[in-house]
């Protein structure tokens, strides 16, 4: 079987022209060239794992956002929008903006001043080795699963759009990421993430613009969505008064307290995949500004992700279904809404750029996972528990090998993920297993001096186990949903929201009880780690328009206005 036969093994949505292929190949050449160019600047541990801590706020901020703008963001949320309507926007607004601002203004000073290289590294400084070990192992586990999901999504897109063999796509994309991250480390990942961010916008922005023209503007879109689905699909908050009044089967308390207060804070403030990008900033003010810059751009990502999903509901002449039904009937699934919209409006050249945008999104997510995995494995598992006295050069070598290892494990995970029908719900479940309790532990660690090392460890463990326990309970006995998610009408996403909330509360409760029963760290050892024991540099000599607070207030005001407009 020759290469062309492998590539075009199945039916495909679109046919690429020569110019489309040139654009795609040019993208691969450019990202590999960047990796090769940066190889010489990644020889020390600080260079390889933290990009030399010399990134500007803009670069760190765009990379912070781009690392998250992976497969799930582009394909998954467009699909979720087709399925659930504008409610999916909550994952971009209340499910991100407050947490990103909180990271920049409140938590970043402790991460940055403590000079930690990772989130588990912070836990080691604050609570000791056992907490670090637990967080590092759970993070490593989660991050390779996420990476596998990214790969699977990408391969699915290639299969649907281009007819590429799914196995071939997985191997080509992962080898490319492995090469450029292994060569240039975090710096290479960040450079490529910024490039990918720009390409994503350049390639995806045209779809909503053309779609709105096609649908007859915003008014026409609302009218058509109401006809083809339901008026409830266009309300952000108005239908959240009861579980049964909206397509997602969720109550506003789940969105506000589960998603807005726990899952998003857990993800954006403690997931090392994104926090690592901010740690590469060249000074504290840049580190505080980076998440605020990220938040400003995050608010507008729904334009290229949510809007195409809504437009799909409005203008596509056929109905999309779930993956299982699509496979059974030979139709198209929700997951294909974004490529379908691309194919609808983008001719030769533009189609190549749109496909490149999707590939770029997938690769940035994958590179983020792999580089974070490499750092946590090398610093928080290998150096902490296996080989404490190796040289810096040996750790860099281990980091490079770990990048390859992480990619290989991710490939294995991608094949596992193929067995799951609902990608999004699966990832939400993962978040609530590990991320929500971790947020409780880190937050108490940063804001409460009395939190003891034993309290931190047992709280984190209890929160994680309670989350897994609740998940297993509902799996074994679906009627348990009425207790976990407060309603038998709740759906998977609502269950995940509430499980995150309960597991975080369990973590906080256990941490507080155990801390009061055990000995805290002396205050002298908390300097640089905890509020009240850390001197945070004053910004009085900086003009107001350069202060993080000033921009955070502006971003917060726009966030409030957007929520009111789309109520």
């Amino acid at each position, binding site marked *: 079987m020759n290469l062309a036969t492998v590539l075009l093994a199945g039916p495909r949505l679109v046919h690429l022209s020569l110019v489309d292929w040139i654009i795609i190949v040019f993208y691969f050449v450019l990202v590999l060239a960047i990796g090769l160019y940066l190889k010489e600047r990644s020889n020390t541990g600080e260079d390889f794992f933290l990009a030399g801590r010399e990134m500007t706020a803009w670069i760190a901020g765009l990379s912070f956002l781009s690392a998250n703008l992976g497969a799930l963001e582009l394909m998954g949320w467009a699909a979720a929008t087709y399925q659930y309507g504008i409610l999916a926007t909550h994952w971009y607004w209340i499910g991100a903006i407050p947490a990103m601002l909180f990271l920049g203004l409140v938590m970043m000073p402790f991460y940055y001043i403590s000079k930690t290289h990772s989130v588990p590294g912070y836990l080691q400084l604050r609570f000791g080795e056992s907490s670090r070990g637990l967080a590092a192992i759970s993070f490593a586990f989660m991050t390779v699963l996420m990476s596998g999901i990214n790969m699977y999504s990408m391969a699915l897109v290639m299969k649907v759009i281009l007819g590429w063999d799914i196995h071939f796509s997985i191997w080509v994309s992962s080898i490319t990421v492995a090469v450029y991250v292994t060569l240039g480390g975090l710096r290479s990942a960040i450079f490529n993430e910024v*490039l990918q961010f720009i390409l994503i916008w350049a390639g995806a922005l045209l779809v909503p613009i053309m779609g709105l023209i*096609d649908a007859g503007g915003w008014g026409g879109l609302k009218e058509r969505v109401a006809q083809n689905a339901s008026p409830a699909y266009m309300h952000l908050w108005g239908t959240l008064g009861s579980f049964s009044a909206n397509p997602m089967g969720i109550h506003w308390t789940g969105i506000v307290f589960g998603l807005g207060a726990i899952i998003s804070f857990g993800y954006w403030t403690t997931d090392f995949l994104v926090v690592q990008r901010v740690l590469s900033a060249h000074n504290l003010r840049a580190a505080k500004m980076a998440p605020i810059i990220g938040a400003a751009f995050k608010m507008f990502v729904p334009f290229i992700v949510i809007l195409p999903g809504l437009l799909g509901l409005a203008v596509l002449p056929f109905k999309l279904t779930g993956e299982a039904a699509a496979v059974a009937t030979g139709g198209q699934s929700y997951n294909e809404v974004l490529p379908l919209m691309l194919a609808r*409006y*983008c001719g030769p050249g533009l189609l190549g750029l749109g496909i*490149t945008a999707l590939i770029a999104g997938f690769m940035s997510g994958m590179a983020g996972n792999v580089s974070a995995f490499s750092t946590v494995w090398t610093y928080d598992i290998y150096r902490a528990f296996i080989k404490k006295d190796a040289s810096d050069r040996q750790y860099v070598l281990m980091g490079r090998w770990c990048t390859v290892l992480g990619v290989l494990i991710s490939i294995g995970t991608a094949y596992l993920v193929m067995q799951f029908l609902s990608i999004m719900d699966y990832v939400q479940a993962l978040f609530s297993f590990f991320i929500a309790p971790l947020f409780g532990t880190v937050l108490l660690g940063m804001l409460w001096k009395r939190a003891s090392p034993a309290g931190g460890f047992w709280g984190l463990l209890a929160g994680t186990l309670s989350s897994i326990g609740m998940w297993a309970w509902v799996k074994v006995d679906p009627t348990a949903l009425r207790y976990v998610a407060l309603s038998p009408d709740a759906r998977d996403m609502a269950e995940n929201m509430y499980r995150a909330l309960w597991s975080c509360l369990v973590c906080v409760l256990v941490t507080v009880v155990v801390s009061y029963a055990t000995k805290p760290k002396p205050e002298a050892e908390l300097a640089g780690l905890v509020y009240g024991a850390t001197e945070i540099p004053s910004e009085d000599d900086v003009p107001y328009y350069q202060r993080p607070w000033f921009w955070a207030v502006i971003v917060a005001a726009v966030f409030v206005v957007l929520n009111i407009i789309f109520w």
Partner: protein
Amino acid sequence: MKSGGAISIWFFVGISLAVNGALICATGLYELVYPPQYRVVLYWLHANVWWGALLLVAGLVYCFHFAPSKVARRNAQSS
């Protein structure tokens, strides 16, 4: 600019936008002369012409502003 090397990341961004923009715009112009048999929805807007031109201009601006020689000169002046 502290972005990791003699060549700024924004220069790479400029190259990418300029090359992609040029290819897309040229394809759009070709389609104006030789209209394709199968056309996308809203073909008459010729999105590839104006979108490609926009990317090309943005890319050239970035390439010019963040050219390695210019960045090196700015860095030398500021240090």
